[in-house]
C-alpha cells in the first residue's frame, strides 16, 4: 500500500515519521491518515479539502489534486506550510 512520510510539525503532532496507509487516491489516503491520526485532521484538511499551503507530493511531484490515482508502491510526502529563500 502507499507509504506516507510526514515532515516538520506534522511529525510531532502525529507522533510518527511515516506509515503505510491504504488508499487508491491521494484524497482517500489523506482521509485514512487523519482517521488513524486524528490530531492531524485540523492541520491537513478543511471541509474535506486540503488546507492552503499544505504541500503534498506524490513520488516527489507536488500536487494539489486529491483525485490523483495512487499505485501500491507510491510514496507520498506531506509538509505543513513552509517558507524560505
Amino acid at each position: 500500500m502507499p507509504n506516507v512520510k510526514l515532515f516538520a510539525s506534522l511529525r510531532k503532532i502525529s507522533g510518527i515519521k511515516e506509515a503505510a496507509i491504504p488508499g487508491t487516491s491521494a484524497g482517500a489516503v489523506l482521509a485514512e491518515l487523519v482517521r488513524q491520526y486524528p490530531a492531524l485532521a485540523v492541520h491537513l484538511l478543511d471541509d474535506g479539502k486540503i488546507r492552503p499551503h499544505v504541500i503534498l507530493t506524490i513520488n516527489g511531484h507536488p500536487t494539489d489534486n486529491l483525485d490523483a490515482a495512487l499505485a501500491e508502491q507510491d510514496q507520498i510526502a506531506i509538509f505543513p506550510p513552509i517558507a524560505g529563500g
Partner: protein
Amino acid sequence: MNGWNGRILEIDLTTQTHKSYPLDMEMAKQFIGGRGLGVRLLWDMVGPEVDPLSPENVLIFTNGPLTATGYQTSNRFSVSTKSPLTGTVLDANSGGYWGMQFKKTGFDVLIVRGKAQKPIWIEIKNSEITFHDASELWGMRVFELTEKLGQDNNKRNVLCIGPAGENLSRLAAIMNDRERAMARGGPGAVMGSKNLKAIVVEGTERPEIMDQERFKFLLYETRKLLAASPLTSQALPEFGTIMLMNIMNNVGALATRNHQQTQFEGAEAISGETLSETYLVKNAACWACPIGCTRISKTEKVEGEGPEFESAWAFGAQCGIDDLAAIIEANSLCNDLGLDTISAGSTIACAMELSEKGYLDSDLRFGQADALARCVEDMAYRRDLGAELTEGSLRLATKYGHPELSMTAKGMEMPAYDPRGLQGQGLLYATSNRGGCHMRGNMIGLEVLGLPKLIDRFQVQGKSSFVILNQNSNAAIDSLVVCKFTNMGVADEYFARILGAVTGVQYDTGDLVKTGERVWNLERLYNNREGFTSKDDSLPPRLLTEAPTDGPSKGWVSQLEPMLKEYYRSRGWDQNGVPTPKKLAELGLENLVDPSRTLEKIA
C-alpha cells in the same frame, strides 16, 4: 521631509574628509531607496573603466523611507557597488539593527569613496563624523571586533569586515551586528581594498511620518495579517528557512555534490527537523520584526546565528557532507571571518570535484566534514589552496582547465535549487543581474510550495511571465527596504499604502511594480555598459545537457533557450536582451545620461 531624511553623507577616505548634501527627491521618488537608489547612484559614479578593487569603486549604503519607522521589518538596508566577483552591478542587503541606526543619524545614503592610506574605522554619531586609526584592529575577527567597538543593539551598531575582506577575498562579506551579512558578490573585498575596517553608527533622530494615524492603523493591520499567515506566524519562526532541506530533496531539486545529482541521501541528517532535535537553542528576530526566522544554534565548539537553508546546503549536500555540527561550525566561522557561505561552500564543492577527477592535486573529497573549517580559514587568510578557492569557483575551475565545473551564473555561485527540477528557477538564475542568486525573485514558491498557487515546474512556455513578475516585485521590495518574508503574509498593496502614509507620496501597487521594473532595467543597462551580453544569460553546461539519472527530476535538463527568447520579448527588450528605447521611455530612463541630473551636479 517625511520618510526620507533627504540627506546624503559622502566620505572620501583618501582625504579623510566628508560632506553632506540634499538627496535628489525626484530621484528618490522614482527609485525609492535601498537597491533602487543604490543602482541609480552607482550608474552615475562607477563606469566600465573602474576596477572593482580600485579606489575609484564606491560603496553606497542606502536606507529607505520606511527604515526606522517601526513598520514591520523596517530594519533592512542595502549596499551597492561593482562586484569584484562578477564585475556586474551588485547590491546586497542585510537585516539586524545597523540600517535602522544609520537612518537615525539623519542620512538616507552613505557614499564611501577613495582609499585610506592606512587602516581606519569611521564613527558616525548623528552629523559628527570621526576617523579613527584601525591599525591595531586590522586582522581582528568580526565577533571580537564588534564587541570591542561597543555593539549595543538598539543604541550603537557595528558594521565591519573580517580577515576575508582585508585579504580581498572575492567572496568576502560585509558583516553587521555581529552575524548579519551583506554577503554575495564580494562587497567585503571592496571595503578591504579601501582599508576601511568598520563603520559604527549611533543616531537619535527618528524619521517623520506624514500621516501618523493612518500609519498606526496600517501597522495594526499588517501585524494581524502576519499573525494570521501560517507562513509568518508558524513556519518561519518555528522552523526557519532550513526547513526547506527535506522538501527540496523530496522533489529532486536539491543540488548535490557540485550539482552532479539532484537528491542527497544525507538530507534528513542536515534538515530543519534534525536541527530542531539537536543543536537548536531558540529563534531570534531583527529589529521591528514579528516573524523571528533566525536560528540560534549551539554545538560543542560554537554558538550563534544560523544556519540558514542555503548555508546548510552549501556546506552540506553540495559538498556531500551530512555532519550538521561541522556545517554549523563552518557557518559560524564564515560569520567570524566575513565570508559568503553560499559561494564558500559551492567553491569547496567545485574543488572537491576537480580533485576527485584528478584535475586538481589536492586531498579534498566529497563528504570530508573535517575539511570544511580548514578550507574556510585558508580562504579567509589566502593560505595554501585557500588562496585559489577565495577567488571563487569560476576562476578556480578555469585555472585547472575545467570552467564547466563551476556552478555559477555570471560568475556567482548558484544556490541550492537545482534548475533541472525547476524550469522557472533556471531562467531566474540565468537572467539575474548580479549573477546566480535566488533572492532576485524566488520561483520555488510557485513551482514547489504552492505560494500563492502551484504551477507545473517542468513547464517552459509562459514561465517567463512569472519570473518577470517575481523579479520586479522583489526589486521593489528591495528598494523599500523591507524583508521579503513580510510579503508572505502581506500583499504588495500594503507596501504601497504604508509608503503613502509615511511619505505622503501616493503610490499604488502598479507604481511599486513599475519601480521594480525600472530598477531591473537600470541594472540591466549597467551590465550592458560593462560589456555583458545575452551570452552571459546562461547556466553551466551540466544543467543544460546532463539530465539526472534518477529521482523526480530524472531526464530533465534546463530548457533555457526557449524561455530566454520569451523572456526578452516579455521584458520589452530586443532579441539580444537589450532594453529598447521604447521600454526605457516607458520607465523614465531615457534621459539617464542627462548631464543636469548627475550626482556631481546635484552636489
